[in-house]
């Protein structure tokens, strides 16, 4: 079971009739148990790439092979909850087969017990994001796609949720694709980091992280980050010279 992404290009025609190139050729694949992280400047086309990978956008050149009948769990950049359904209903609608014990456990972990019967309009953005995470986890996905899931959460909560994501990813055979701005999230969660260029996006560098996620202590994380920063600065310096 693998996710194979081989996009050779994607153009977008604006209302004014001009064509814009959104994606340059992008090619990577992701295996079970792996966390791939897309890191890139905002507006570089990451969300477009995700839409293509999820099968929501079929108007592109190239190929995306998802495992057949893969269950997808997705956390969108904005929570995308149904405002007219309660928190619990929102989760259950996406994951009809979930049993009560699992649901309770999920709500406990994400600290949502008190909000089960609330409507999304009554939640803060941070809470709504947690519901979106709960919904994505509840489907027990084969492919988990997270589009900046920890943005605008406070550090403590972001840290806890990051650990929850890591636990889930470790507990089930799941392919995970994470989009983030944060090098910290990328290094703590990722197995392979893909650094993207500004629009039209292409992969500048693919950086595997050799140390298993569980074995990464603060020291290792700091070292990897320092290495990455050196590397990207080096690349930038190299480009400036040429």
């Amino acid at each position, binding site marked *: 079971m693998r996710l194979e992404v081989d996009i050779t290009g994607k153009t977008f025609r604006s209302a004014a009739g001009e064509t814009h190139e959104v994606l340059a050729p992008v090619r990577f694949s992701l295996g079970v148990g792996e966390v791939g992280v897309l890191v890139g400047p905002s507006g570089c086309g990451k969300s477009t790439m995700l839409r293509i990978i999820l099968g929501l956008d079929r108007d592109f050149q190239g190929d995306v092979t998802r495992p057949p009948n893969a269950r997808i*769990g*997705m956390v969108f950049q*904005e929570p995308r909850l*149904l405002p*007219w359904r309660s928190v619990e209903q929102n989760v259950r609608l996406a994951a009809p087969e979930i049993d009560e014990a699992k649901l309770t456990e999920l709500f406990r972990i994400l600290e949502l017990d008190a909000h089960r019967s609330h409507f999304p309009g009554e939640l803060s953005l941070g809470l709504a994001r947690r519901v979106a995470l709960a919904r994505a986890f509840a489907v027990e996905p084969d492919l988990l796609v997270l589009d900046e899931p920890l943005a605008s959460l406070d550090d403590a909560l972001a840290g806890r949720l990051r650990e929850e994501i890591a636990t889930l990813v470790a507990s089930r055979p799941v392919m995970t694709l994470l989009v983030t701005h944060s090098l910290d999230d990328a290094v703590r969660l990722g197995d392979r980091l893909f650094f993207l260029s500004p629009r039209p996006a292409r992969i500048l560098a693919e950086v595997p992280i050799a140390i298993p996620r569980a074995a990464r202590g603060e020291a290792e994380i700091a070292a990897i980050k320092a290495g990455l920063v050196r590397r990207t600065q080096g690349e930038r310096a190299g480009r400036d010279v040429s």
Partner: protein
Amino acid sequence: MLRLLSFALFLAIWWIAALFVGGVKLPSPPAVLQVMMAEAASGALFLHLGATLARVVLAFVLAMSLGSAIGYLMGRVKLADRLGDPWLILLLNLPALVVIVLAYIWAGLTEAAAIAAIAINKLPTAVVTLREGTRALDRSLDEMAAVFAMSRWRAFRHVVLPQLAPYIAAAARSGLSLVWKIVLVAELLGRPNGVGFEIGVAFQLFDTPRLLAYSLTFAAVVLVIETLLVQPFEARSTRWRPRAA
């Protein structure tokens, strides 16, 4: 409380006006009430009201279900919108009287003709409202439903329908008032019973108390149905919205 007060005010104005205008043109409230009671005692009032209500219900249900389906289709499928639009504009601007008279000519003075004519009059407004509602659907929620592999029916029921509910309520509200108005014309022109028929008779006999007795009972029924059926549905379909102060 406020409603009662406004009703009392209406009665007061009527009564005073009746005193000035005089008996034949505008009878006083007690005179009308007397006719109402007499008609109710004979059973005629309920018979005619019942006949009218049955027509309203049938025509309303027919027009709402058909209109909603067509409107949804036109909002979703561009081809359907292009094909249906000229028809829609024609129907929207066709006077109710033309539809009713043509229906009676083509289908005879039958119950089916009356109900179809009323439904056709209401249909286009339901289509237009639901088409707007469908166009305003949130695509990002459609995408969410697609990603989470919700079945068509599930997505329709939980994602689409709640978004359409305010539009359906609006179509029902405006449509119902349209049907109330048209049903009497249809009855006046071609049915042997119903409130419209009775009003036609009262008009020919210049019997204002009887005319008012039937119209006001009819108005009261409309008011009750609006308060007991339409408004609770509206309130329920929008209960997740934060209340306006």
